[in-house]
């Protein structure tokens, strides 16, 4: 029988993870990190866990996913995985650097873990804290803000994650594919912390893939900070493909310098519950940001994208485009906030959210929030929630295309507008194919993982 746990008990339970394992959390020579954890734990106790009563989580009920009796993993699992098999199964011939993270820990058998030519560093965050403490200290938790209990909890409890460092003027020669795998014999609460630093005029392309490999209950509290220096360029694609009993809150903070550009897409193919917090600060003149997302839900799945773009400096451009296709009784939410600071003249900020409801039971909440304190800006926003175009359906039927196929073509066309922004060609083809399969119901709809390629 499933036990449910009350919120106060949960707060105590999570705090005890820290309190009962202090030797693991308190490291020598990292006072800054020790105090960050203590402060964050205090913040977490004050903030508690997000509930529907809080304005920011109004449309997402995390309770059923949080209130499960999870185990916590403070050291890496002792599992031997054939990385060749895992990568073969996923995105083939991508021509990428590949790294695997297992239950939030950098996998020990990854072929990359540490310094690469040109001073580039890719590897375990835990290792980086040991080997490059000054570098990590300079950036870690500098843009994440403890205004959300789960964010504070992440800072208090994280053990490992990914660290990427691209020094000034360097370019990562191939895209880095990061496969986050959940695999365990017990229900797990996973805390993962990632840090991505691009110094000035640096370039990188990252692909994160989130997967579940066993049918246990999971909750992932992931936090990623991305620093993109002057004139730098970061491409970031996140493919979320977990099973129905997996919940995930993924918070991403992006800080952009002058004339930098960031393009991102967050594609949620399958999951029980996903909340993406994406917070971007355009903090240098001429910075450009394109943040896009697509989700496909069915059954009782729920996906909530919460995007916040702050224009802090003049002459910056931002574009948000999010889409959702909702089937059965699934639900979704989009919140797009644009803040234009008083000095951010000549800002151009755009936002678009479109959603397709395939049944009358599916439900979508969408909310734009514009706060503009500068007077010379171009801003626009638009949101739609609708059904498939009946005229277009009839037009296709009149050409001999069956209704089911016609519906698929229309849904696929709707989704493709987001997918076409993905710059890595093989990844784009692969995601196109996966979305197509997902819409056809050919991706595994069961409790188990969807990437077992049969």
């Amino acid at each position, binding site marked *: 029988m499933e036990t449910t746990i009350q919120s106060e008990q949960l707060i105590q339970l999570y705090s005890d993870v820290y309190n009962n394992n202090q030797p693991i959390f308190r490291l020598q020579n990292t006072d800054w990190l020790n105090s960050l954890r203590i402060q964050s734990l205090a913040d977490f106790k004050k903030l508690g866990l997000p509930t529907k009563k809080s304005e920011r989580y109004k449309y997402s009920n995390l309770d059923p996913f949080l209130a499960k009796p999870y185990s916590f993993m403070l050291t890496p699992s002792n599992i031997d995985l054939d990385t060749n098999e895992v990568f073969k199964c996923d995105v083939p011939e991508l021509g990428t650097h590949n790294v695997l993270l297992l239950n939030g820990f950098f996998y020990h058998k990854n072929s990359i873990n540490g310094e690469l030519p040109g001073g580039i560093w890719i590897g375990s965050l835990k290792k980086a804290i040991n080997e490059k403490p000054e570098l990590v200290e300079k950036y870690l938790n500098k843009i994440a803000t403890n205004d959300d209990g789960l964010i504070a909890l992440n800072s208090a409890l994280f053990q490992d994650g990914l660290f990427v460092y691209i020094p000034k003027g360097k370019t990562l020669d191939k895209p880095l594919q990061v496969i986050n795998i959940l695999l365990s014999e017990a229900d797990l609460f996973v805390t993962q912390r990632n840090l991505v630093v691009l110094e000035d005029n640096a370039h990188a392309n990252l692909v994160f893939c989130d997967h579940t490999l066993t049918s246990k209950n999971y909750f992932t509290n992931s936090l990623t900070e991305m620093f993109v220096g002057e004139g730098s360029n970061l491409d970031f694609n996140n493919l979320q493909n977990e099973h129905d009993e997996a919940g995930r809150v993924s918070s991403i903070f992006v800080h952009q310098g002058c004339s930098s550009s960031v393009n991102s897409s967050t594609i949620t193919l399958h999951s029980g519950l996903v909340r993406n917090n994406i917070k971007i600060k355009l903090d240098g003149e001429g910075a450009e940001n394109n943040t896009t997302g697509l989700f496909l839900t069915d059954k009782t799945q729920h996906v909530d994208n919460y995007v916040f773009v702050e224009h802090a400096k003049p002459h910056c451009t931002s574009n948000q485009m999010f889409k959702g296709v909702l089937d059965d009784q699934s639900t979704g939410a989009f919140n797009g906030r644009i803040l234009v600071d008083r000095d951010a003249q000549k800002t151009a900020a755009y936002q678009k959210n479109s959603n397709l409801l395939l049944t009358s039971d599916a439900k979508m909440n969408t909310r734009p929030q514009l706060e503009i304190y500068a007077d010379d800006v171009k801003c626009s926003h638009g949101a739609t929630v609708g059904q498939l*175009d009946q*005229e*277009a359906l*009839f*037009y*296709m*039927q*009149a*050409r*001999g*295309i*069956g*209704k089911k*196929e*016609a519906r698929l*073509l*229309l849904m*696929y*066309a*709707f989704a*493709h*507008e987001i997918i076409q922004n993905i710059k890595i060609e093989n990844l784009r083809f692969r995601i196109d194919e996966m979305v197509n399969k997902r819409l056809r119901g050919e991706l595994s709809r069961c409790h188990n993982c969807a990437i077992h390629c049969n």
Partner: protein
Amino acid sequence: MLQIKNLHAKIGDKEILKGINLEVKAGEIHAIMGPNGSGKSTLAGVLTGREFIEVTQGEIIYEGKNLLELSPEERAREGVFLSFQYPVEIPGVSMVNFMKTAVNEMRKHKGLPAMPAGDFLKLMREKQQFVEMEGKLTGRSVNEGFSGGEKKKNEIFQMAMLNPKLSILDETDSGLDIDALRIVATGVNKLKTAENATVVITHYQRLLDYIVPDIIHVLYDGRIVKTAGKELALELEEKGYDWIKKESAEL
């Protein structure tokens, strides 16, 4: 090929077609003319399976089959083609993918395997020449951003691709300049054989200068009130529809 017997149809509570009788044989071109609101487009809608039109009486036999029992896609696969008065824009669905799906669904219906990609692209190129649209369709979404003329040419292109038995051209001349009209009409004429038939629905006589019908019917108030040879078009052009209205009122 097509027999319409005592066809009555309504949209909502309003009866639009009030007993249509019409027979079209292979090799013929029929024109259906009539003033606005006479039921021309409703007739086209009934023939192609528009859901919002309810047939209350009568039957339509097409190639020995009860057409009204078939879904819109089944009708298309059996060779019924409608050139839309207002072709629909479908952003994100490429012309190539759209036509490939349509052609292959037709082939599947005939028990044929999917057309190899090379052959298909060759066919696309060949048929675009029919309507002088060489290279203008690839890389574009269905009708998206097309001019009025391009949309109508695209309809005839699709007709050429699908090679239907019975083509219904619903106000194909509306919104066309004289050059586009000539191109569209030439395309239709080239597709004419002794085995297929065409029904041209139009308000004006203009199109019939280019696509010469064997028989002209005048539809008024849901009924065919006059049937004659091609010379009827000129008479209508000269005198308008008022005399027909008067004549039918007297009946």
